[in-house]
């Protein structure tokens, strides 16, 4: 890899590791210091490697520099503390400086513990995702702003508030106790799920960035499987879900970055390796007493890896949505269930149920209505699409609805 590509790549992977280890050592109140030392390390790498060429082992080089910078900081910090406290004790000796442990094991533990801290229930979900992107994934403020379709100032403020909250709540970077781990793990998984969805469903046109979000969410979820306390069936279920969804990532985008809907996708472009990975995790998830929403959603996503439009497939999907909704309501699940119902029992039955959904403010509800009216009442189908167009926000959504309107509009009579 050329230097120009190597540094950004190393930045992503190593910045987060160095920050996690240092932050764990210093405590959350000094996360700014941890981030500064990590950034300084990369600045030094940029300068030195530019002049002298790449070192033999760039990662080891980074760790050595980061350790030295951290030790230096601690030396000055000790002097600083003594000055402030007016203490006249003996000077700090080298032995007072703790060892900076950048071993694979400690990096791994620190990152996992950091994940639990960032996904603490005291932090609002949106800020959790932002913090996860910054601290756990090494994304720049600008990238996060692009991902959220927001601006740098807003994101910087949001992250600052979240960090302040972590400090004021005195959230420790540690594993929750055994009795607590299940609840806290649910929180972590929900954040990772939202992070994945941010990449998968966002209307952002930056495909590379979106794919990065998905891959990072998968990487962090995978970290959880490498620790015995968090290696649980529900984690495997989420990884299965992410793998099945990600398998369609390339097929759902054309060369211009426009969405291709499921029915129009070229199934030969689905990533078979990811589908297989999904199957493996789904098999591993099938243990323990609890069926989570991730289990059900992974099974639905698995159903969609088979493009055949058979009644059996749709009946399975309908049953899974029934169970999912009985477990936890969401508007998307209600809409998707009704679509599955139309595939099993016909559009008329589904239309009757759709009209009871009370989701009139969602543009996708009117897209569904249009689908169900098509064939029996094309005028109503067209009217529903126009309502959908009116309610849709993102240009990508509007474009797809406009295409549907065009397809439904009868050609002008000569």
């Amino acid at each position, binding site marked *: 890899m050329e230097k120009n590509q190597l540094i950004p790549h190393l930045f992503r992977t190593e910045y987060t590791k160095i920050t996690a280890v240092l932050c764990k050592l210093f405590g959350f109140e000094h996360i700014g210091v941890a981030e500064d030392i990590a950034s300084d390390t990369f600045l030094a790498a940029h300068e030195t490697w530019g002049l002298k060429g790449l070192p033999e082992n760039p990662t080891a080089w980074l760790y050595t520099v980061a350790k030295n910078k951290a030790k230096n900081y601690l030396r000055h910090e000790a002097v600083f503390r003594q000055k402030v406290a007016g203490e006249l004790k003996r000077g700090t000796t080298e032995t007072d400086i703790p060892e900076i442990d950048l071993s694979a094991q400690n990096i791994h533990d620190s990152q996992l513990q950091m994940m639990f801290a960032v996904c603490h229930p005291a932090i609002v979900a949106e800020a959790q995702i932002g913090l996860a992107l910054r601290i756990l994934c090494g994304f720049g403020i600008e990238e996060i702003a692009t991902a959220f379709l927001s601006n740098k100032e807003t994101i910087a403020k949001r992250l600052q508030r979240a960090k302040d909250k972590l400090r004021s709540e005195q959230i420790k970077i540690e594993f929750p106790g055994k009795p607590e781990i299940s609840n806290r793990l649910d929180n972590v998984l929900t954040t990772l799920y939202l992070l994945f969805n941010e990449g998968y469903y966002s209307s952002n046109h930056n495909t590379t960035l979106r794919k990065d979000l998905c891959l990072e969410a998968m990487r962090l979820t995978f970290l959880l499987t490498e620790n015995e306390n968090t290696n649980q069936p529900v984690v495997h279920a989420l990884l299965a879900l992410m793998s099945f969804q990600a398998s369609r990532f390339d097929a759902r985008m054309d060369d211009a970055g426009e969405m291709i809907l499921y029915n129009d996708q070229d199934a030969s472009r689905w990533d078979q390796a990811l589908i297989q990975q999904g199957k493996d995790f789904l098999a591993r998830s099938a243990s323990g007493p609890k069926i989570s929403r991730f289990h059900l959603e992974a099974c639905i996503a698995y159903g969609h890896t088979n493009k055949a439009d058979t009644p059996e497939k749709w*009946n399975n999907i309908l049953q899974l*949505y029934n*169970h999912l909704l009985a477990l936890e*309501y969401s508007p998307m699940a*209600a809409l998707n269930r009704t679509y599955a119902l139309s595939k099993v029992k016909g559009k008329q039955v589904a239309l009757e149920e759709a009209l*009871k*959904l*009370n989701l009139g403010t969602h543009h996708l509800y009117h897209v569904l209505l249009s689908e169900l009216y098509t064939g029996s009442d094309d005028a109503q189908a067209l009217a529903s699409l126009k309502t959908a167009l009116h309610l849709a926000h993102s240009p990508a959504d509007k474009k797809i609805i406009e295409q549907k309107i065009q397809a439904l509009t009868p050609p002008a009579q000569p």
Partner: protein
Amino acid sequence: MSIPAMLACYTVLQQLKLKTMKDFLFVYRADRSVIAQRSPEEVQINTQKWMDWIGSIAAQNKLVDAGNRLYPTGKVSRGNQVVTDGPFTELKETLGGYSLIKADSLDEAVALSQGCPIYEAGGSVEIREIHAM
């Protein structure tokens, strides 16, 4: 707080209370002997019908808890008195399960009970509003 302000506040609270949905218990009763005659395939089809019906209520965000089915056997205790074996009412009226739903009114709850697969077995749904403790 002034009296008009208090009154306004009270009105808002009343309105909020009205808007809050009420919880209802659905109690399913049916003739055990009809249900016991079903083949395994029929049992499976029946389970799907139940889940389709429950899914329809859940899709409207009106399900609190899908509830459970009940085994037909059980006992009735009346304090110190004799514990009797079930069935406890006529066979036709065996308690088979329950669900919790939410609705704006009893009428709406009754409307939601339409389409319940228990009717196909000649059974009934008893709809009772929950009186919170």
